[in-house]
């Protein structure tokens, strides 16, 4: 087969077939179109304004590593005027997160960005290793998801940032659309395709890679020789998501536009007022001050279960009732430090590792 010429510059040799368009392009044109499309996503959604402090949620994996690289490049090229930080959560998973954090620490040097690492251990007093020891490997993803979400917000608040960007790519979002359909979670279905979510007292979160295909992110990392960590979480058997992922990859192999088509389908669902009305009004957690739709936030509920040795209490309603029947939480219960919403947080000096 003779080498093909790039469909964009008509000059260099094509090295990649774009899944979105089928276009065959060279390495340099690929870098250019990939970065420009992310830039267009950012400007069309008006994600940032000059002077914003933005934390990149960094796991050491491919998506967040490429995101850090591209955010730095675009911030310089188009003069966004952003102050960029790396924010990592240490879940406390031996042999997984400790290795990936080493990657993040190298990224800090390579990209010359301040890095803040916040651990479950310092925030909740529990590592994932300890949690799995108590709850087993069945529900541990529930704990990890709830704890990570709150840890990211708290880490961001301590950095005084306005905004968290995450590496969720088009494949991830399409997968979440499928998951929400399969679970009948219509309220989430309406929200999961949003590029940016922002509540009154929550830190803005957005996904600049919303339209970036996983294939292109991996190719970008490969061609740029970016340093990333790729081992599956040792506790990760979220079987349902795994099936959704395999199904999606099969669809993509047959028709690459499936990813974008599913995202568009998700966007086209209009969540009825009736469904919206059933979503609970946000309040703040009585124990820790974090946003919550009940008296206690999910993290406090889960933590109480762990502390009282009945960790599955927050997972099922029946177990929760049993816990309530046993009486109120003991006085000496370990709790999460009180959360101050970023607007209320003075921009005081914080301890971060500077490169």
């Amino acid at each position: 087969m003779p080498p093909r010429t790039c469909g964009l510059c008509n000059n260099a040799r094509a090295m990649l077939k774009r899944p979105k368009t089928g276009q065959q392009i060279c390495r340099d044109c690929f870098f250019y179109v990939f970065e420009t499309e992310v830039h267009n996503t950012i400007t069309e959604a008006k994600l940032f304004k000059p002077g914003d402090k933005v934390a990149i949620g960094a796991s050491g994996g491919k998506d967040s590593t490429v995101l850090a690289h591209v955010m730095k490049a675009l911030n310089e090229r188009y003069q966004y005027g952003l102050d960029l930080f790396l924010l990592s959560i240490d879940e406390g998973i031996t042999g997984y997160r400790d290795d990936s954090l080493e990657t993040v620490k190298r990224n800090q040097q390579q990209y010359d960005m301040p890095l803040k690492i916040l651990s479950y251990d310092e925030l909740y007093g529990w590592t994932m290793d300890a949690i799995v020891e108590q709850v087993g490997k069945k529900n541990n993803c529930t704990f990890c998801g709830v704890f990570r979400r709150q840890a990211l917000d708290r880490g961001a608040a301590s950095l005084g940032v306005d905004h968290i960007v995450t590496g969720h790519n088009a494949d991830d979002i399409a997968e979440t659309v499928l998951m929400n359909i399969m679970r009948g979670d219509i309220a989430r279905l309406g929200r999961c395709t949003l590029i940016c979510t922002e509540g009154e007292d929550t830190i803005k979160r957005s996904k600049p890679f919303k339209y970036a295909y996983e294939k292109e992110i991996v190719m970008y990392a490969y061609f740029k020789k970016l340093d990333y960590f790729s081992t599956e979480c040792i506790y990760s058997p979220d079987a349902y998501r795994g099936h959704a992922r395999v199904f999606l990859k099969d669809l993509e192999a047959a028709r690459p536009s499936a990813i974008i088509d599913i995202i568009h389908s998700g966007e086209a669902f209009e969540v009825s007022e009736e469904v919206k009305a059933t979503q609970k009004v946000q309040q703040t957690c009585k124990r820790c001050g974090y946003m919550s739709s009940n008296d206690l936030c999910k993290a406090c509920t889960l933590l109480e279960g762990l502390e009282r040795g009945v960790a599955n209490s927050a997972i099922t309603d029946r177990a929760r009732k049993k816990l309530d029947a046993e009486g109120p939480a003991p006085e000496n219960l370990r709790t999460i430090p009180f959360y101050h919403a970023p607007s209320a947080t003075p921009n005081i000096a914080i301890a971060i590792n500077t490169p």
Partner: protein
Amino acid sequence: MSTTSTIKLKVEFSGGLELLFSNQRSHRIEIPAVVPSDNSTIIDATSKAGDKTKSADVTYLMYHLRDHLLKERVELFMEAGTVRPGILVLINDTDWELEGEGEYVLKDGDEIVFISTLHGG
């Protein structure tokens, strides 16, 4: 039929795929230049001169890797005669989709890279 001639290749696994291959990223291997058309990688006494053959291609390479190098969980590498969806293949740093995918005929010194995209972001 010159059954004795072989080709040398450099094969690399990354993105978590290396875990299936003794946690080793880079492998140098040698395969026959002419191979059975049915991708059988076991050369036994029953193969006769009349058996159908072809020049070694990437599809044959995948069977070879599966049969001789893969340490565990075949289904995570191959599915329905090709790589599992979600694994990218590069032939001399070029997307294999531009090179005829499995039908690409291997040359001595080629570098083939398999990258999993399925591992965490």
